[in-house]
């Protein structure tokens, strides 16, 4: 047992590190993803990686994957987190892409995979509904066969960044009489320009607009857009959720955020000393680092299992629970660190930091918004309560 990277892995790390240093868009360095960015900024790195052939590392090589080992993929995400890179959005690369190459037909693969790899086609996810959140299988949106089309009616919600989407993947009920709610659901690809689709932004508590309600009224979609078999969509959706969960621990990003927190706390003063020298505060940062170390090794053990051919099992729920709790705690401590300057609502004050009379230090500007926004992480992707149910059932056997 050892934790060292092999010489080959170190060489790989140096290679990707210098590639990132040379190619990551200079105007985006360190900025991280924000919902109010222009769409071309959100996909800039994706497009560069697409040209390099590194946009879909986890895919099978025949579909454009890099053939990296799980450890190499881990190194890749670490190195990107070091510059807070805006990674390819997950909806194409991590969600619908794998479903298409695993269950789609040859025409669907030829039509959709290149645009996902290159970053030219923007995807969104039509899963949740107002009445179907944690209980996703109770979804009500219907797709009714009419000749060589499906006619889709219903309402989806929490469709992330759908305001920019070219295509969406939707779960629709095709057999309302199925015995169990999980049966009778189909997985359908929808061109977002099809008449009858209306995307309405949802304002979140941080003031941002990253999610939407998507209304579908008599949306006619060619039957060729069905993935796999009719009424088998739940199987594909579950496959996708397993992919969504890997990487959800966000270890690399949290490590960077801890560094940022330390640097903020070194700038802030308490009793004429840097806040980070205050034992009460430093103790909380250390607690976070300890929790993060435990999570990191847990993730590495999961990766090692994958390299040995064991897919991520229900224990990935631990990664989701602990990963999101740590992300939330980080933003909470950052807000605490900035003191009074966590109070201004910077979003409504353009150029808050660049005026003759600035409002607080730059690093304070996203503190409250990030804290509010990150409450979502224990709710989305299968709420942390649902993750605990999975462990209860699948691991404890209760």
């Amino acid at each position: 047992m050892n934790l060292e990277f092999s010489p080959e892995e170190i060489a790989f790390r140096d290679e990707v590190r210098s590639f990132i240093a040379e190619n990551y868009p200079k105007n985006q360095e360190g900025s991280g993803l924000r919902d109010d960015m222009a769409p071309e900024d959100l996909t800039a790195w994706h497009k560069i990686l697409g040209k390099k052939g590194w946009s879909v590392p986890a895919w099978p090589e025949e579909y454009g994957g890099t053939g990296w080992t799980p450890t190499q993929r881990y190194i890749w995400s670490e190195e990107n987190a070091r510059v807070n890179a805006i990674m390819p959005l997950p909806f194409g690369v991590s969600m619908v892409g794998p479903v298409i190459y695993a269950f789609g037909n040859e025409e669907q693969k030829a039509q959709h995979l290149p645009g996902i790899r290159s970053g030219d086609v923007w995807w969104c996810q039509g899963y949740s509904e107002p009445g179907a959140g944690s209980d996703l299988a109770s979804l009500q949106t219907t797709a009714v066969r009419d000749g060589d089309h499906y006619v889709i009616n219903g309402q989806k919600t929490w469709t992330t960044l759908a305001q920019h989407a070219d295509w969406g993947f939707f779960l629709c009920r095709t057999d309302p009489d199925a015995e169990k709610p999980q049966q009778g659901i189909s997985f359908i690809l929808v061109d977002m320009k099809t008449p009858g689709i209306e995307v309405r932004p949802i304002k979140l508590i941080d003031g941002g607009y990253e999610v939407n309600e998507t209304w579908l009224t008599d949306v006619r979609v060619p039957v060729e857009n069905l993935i796999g078999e009719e009424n088998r969509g739940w199987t594909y959706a579950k496959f996708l959720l397993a992919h969504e969960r890997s990487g959800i621990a966000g270890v690399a990003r949290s490590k960077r955020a801890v560094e940022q927190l330390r640097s903020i706390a070194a700038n802030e003063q308490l009793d004429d000393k840097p806040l980070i020298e205050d034992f009460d505060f430093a103790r909380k940062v250390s607690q976070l680092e300890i929790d993060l170390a435990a999570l990191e090794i847990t993730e590495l053990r999961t990766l090692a299992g994958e390299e040995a051919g064991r897919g991520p099992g229900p224990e990935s729920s631990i990664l989701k629970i602990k990963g999101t709790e740590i992300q939330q705690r980080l933003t909470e401590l950052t807000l605490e660190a900035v003191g009074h300057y966590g109070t201004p609502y910077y979003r409504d004050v353009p150029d808050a930091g660049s005026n003759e009379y600035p409002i607080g230090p730059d690093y304070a500007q996203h503190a409250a918004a990030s804290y509010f926004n990150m409450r979502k992480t224990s709710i989305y992707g299968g709420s942390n309560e649902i993750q605990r149910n999975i462990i209860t059932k699948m691991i404890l056997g209760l």
Partner: protein
Amino acid sequence: MDFNFTEEQSMVRDGLTRLVRESYEFEARRKVIEGDSGWRPELWAQIAEMGLLGMPFSEEDGGFGGGPIDSLVVMEEFGRGLVVEPYVPTVVCAGGFLKHAGNAAQKEEYLGGIIDGSKVFAFAYAEPRGRYDYADLETTAKKDGDGYVLNGHKAVVIAAPWASHLIVTARTSGERRDREGVSVFVVDKNADGIVTRDYPTVDGRRASEVYFENVQIPADALIGEEGNGLPLIELVTDEAIAAHCAEACGAMKVAHEMTVEYSRQRKQFGTPIGKFQVLQHRMVDMYTEYEQSVSMTYLATLKLGEEEAERKKAVASAKVRIGQAAHHIGQESIQIHGGMGMTDELAIGSYFKRLTIFDSEFGNVDHHMKRHVALASG
């Protein structure tokens, strides 16, 4: 022992409950806080007319002879409705400085205006570097002829955009963090040399960065003794903390009620989510936190008139306990509301945000824990 409110206090509460229900329905509040000015001077006038702004002042000062418990009643109702109007800055802070240390002329000049609603105050104490230490001041007031010259920068001054006057803390002598040499002034916000940058706050209020650039103030702007302002500031901010604790209790109560109600309505897996025991117990914990917070608010409020060490310890205890409860209840409210809790559409997010910011006002949990440790170890 008596934990009952007087008949008068109960009447005030009923009147306020009605006012908040009629004027502070969530969408009405949203319109106001997103509007140009961010508050309703006409509502402030109405509150003044109800006599609420005069309650904690003695009859000889033109008030109704009440005290901190009256402010508790008001702020608890303000918290329930997330009322943004500046009761704490104007009545508790400015009113507090004036009633404890103002001279006859100052009381004459300002208290009437506070009570009738015509003078609105903000309390400019925080500075970019000082965090929660009231003596850590870079703002200076230098003697100049008969008066003083103010220079400095005050941070996140709540309600300053609405204020006609400011209470300003400044150093008149000594080094930056000395306990001696701190003084308190009342300043007309329109005085030459005051520059403000106004902005909204994440919890729906308004605040300003306030810059003083060679602001000339007269000698009679000084409240209390020159250089001996710190004990007075500690007293008044303890009173403000008690009032904010009451506000937090009001907000926590509503957040808890909304969450329980949502868990009754929201169905998943064919059953209201409130039937899931894991959520039931979490809502019980929220309720317990709320009840402990009410107790601590009473403790702090009732000890405001006691000798200094006892008062400080009670207030620090309350701020620690309620700071923790406010985080707990805020976070759990959002979690149990699920995705809907993340939306700006529901009121619960606004309660969460107010309860978040409560912690950093007048010192957070860590600050008051240290204060408690120091007091407890004598």
